[in-house]
């Protein structure tokens, strides 16, 4: 049995490396993300209600809906959590005492291994596909409905928009630069199904990616990336996103040297779980919205 949803939402951290990174990225999506944590608190924020009886009724219905496996909420949460497991060895323990002070990246260089471009490209595009699949699971749309997702992406706001913005900043612009669309596209073109099957993230989430074989799943990954290119490109242009601008904002709490951006990308990958964090918040909102409509 999976963990109760109210516990998962109650236990979302109020302050850690992930929340500090997301706050540092506020410049790219001003005012969009507030770190709403706690089950009852989220119910109050989503619905604007304060009556304890009504909040109890909404929460109870949300618990029922989450626990019904056919409703897709558990699968969506699992996907968000799985694609973004922070490396525990470097995560919690090593950084526990560093919340509130600057993290010296240099001190971690021996513990961090930058990813090869291909692995980084798989990471980025798999996170994107997980967003498509989780979106469909949460909202009740067939899993291969890329068109519906792309339409909805233009409507993204709050923590969902922040997740996509963080994806572009942390998993695309930092490792590949502002021309990442071309760089990642050429990595995908060179990728064969066996490379994909050897990727540990892929092997975990593949059964939920549309397509019966690694080849057709690779096609879906390519189509997903192609589909969001326009949106990503617009974001980079409209916000003028550059490596320098992003690292300047992150440098408020991580000491960064400009020639070590591959290490910075790997370090952030290992120490943050922004997909799982904001994905849980998105799921909580949709679940509560539905529960509030049904009670």
């Amino acid at each position: 049995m999976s963990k109760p949803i109210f516990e998962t939402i109650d236990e979302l951290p109020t302050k850690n490396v992930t929340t500090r990174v997301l706050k540092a990225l506020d410049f790219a999506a001003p005012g969009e993300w507030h770190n709403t944590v706690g089950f009852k608190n989220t119910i109050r924020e989503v619905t604007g209600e304060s009556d304890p009886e009504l909040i109890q009724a909404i929460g109870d219905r949300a618990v029922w809906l989450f626990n019904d496996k056919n409703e897709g909420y558990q699968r969506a949460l699992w996907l968000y959590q799985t694609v973004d497991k922070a490396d525990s060895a470097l995560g919690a323990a090593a950084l526990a005492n560093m919340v509130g002070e600057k993290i010296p990246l240099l001190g971690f260089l021996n513990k961090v291994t930058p990813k090869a471009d291909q692995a980084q490209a798989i990471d980025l595009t798999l996170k994107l596909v997980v967003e498509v699949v989780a979106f469909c699971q949460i909202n009740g749309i067939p899993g291969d409905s890329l068109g519906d997702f792309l339409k909805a992406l233009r409507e993204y706001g709050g923590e969902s928009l922040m997740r996509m913005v963080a994806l572009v900043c942390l998993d695309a612009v930092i490792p590949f630069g502002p021309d990442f669309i071309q760089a990642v596209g050429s990595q995908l073109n060179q990728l064969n199904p066996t490379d994909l099957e050897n990727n540990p993230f892929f092997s975990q989430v593949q059964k939920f990616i549309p397509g019966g074989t690694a080849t057709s799943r690779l096609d879906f990954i390519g189509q997903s990336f192609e589909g969001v290119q326009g949106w990503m490109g617009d974001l980079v242009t409209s916000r003028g996103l550059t490596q320098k601008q992003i690292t300047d904002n992150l440098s408020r709490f991580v000491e960064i040297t400009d020639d070590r951006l591959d290490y910075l990308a790997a370090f952030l990958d290992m120490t943050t779980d922004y997909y799982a964090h904001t994905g849980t918040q998105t799921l909580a909102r949709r679940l509560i919205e539905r529960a509030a409509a049904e009670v």
Partner: protein
Amino acid sequence: MKRWSILLSSLLLSSWLFLTACTATPPSDFEAAQNASTEKGATAVVEEAIAGSQFNAFFPAAEGDYDVVYTQEKTGFAQAKLKQSGTDLAVLSIADITSNPSAADKYANSTNEINGYPTVEQGKNGTGALVGDRFQVKVQSRSEDFSASDRQTWLAKFDLDGLAALQ
């Protein structure tokens, strides 16, 4: 040897104390729902619930600078956002309450109606109508400028008679 056993016993004792302290957390207010919904055979949505896609036709249409953007569509449920010039005003929904019939209770003492269907105000931000004793149509404000009377106006824009004929 004796020192080791003392060390081991104190270690075990402290772990036991630690664990007992952990379990002393008061149970959540949602524990009962958690237990009931994870019992064998428990289901949140009954089989006979109508597919959400069938509800879309009964939602209000977009008009002027008002936009209706569909968000969730599940078995027994469909939801859309009501927006005006890009700003969220309200959430519109239709739910088949066969899965949670107690939702109908609040309409028993209803004194108001829209097009002959009983309505209630729920909390600060919600207005609901019960259609054919089976469907709950709701409008929930998501903006302070969207009042109870706005909610009633938009409830009346649903095709409630069409929905009633669905069952």
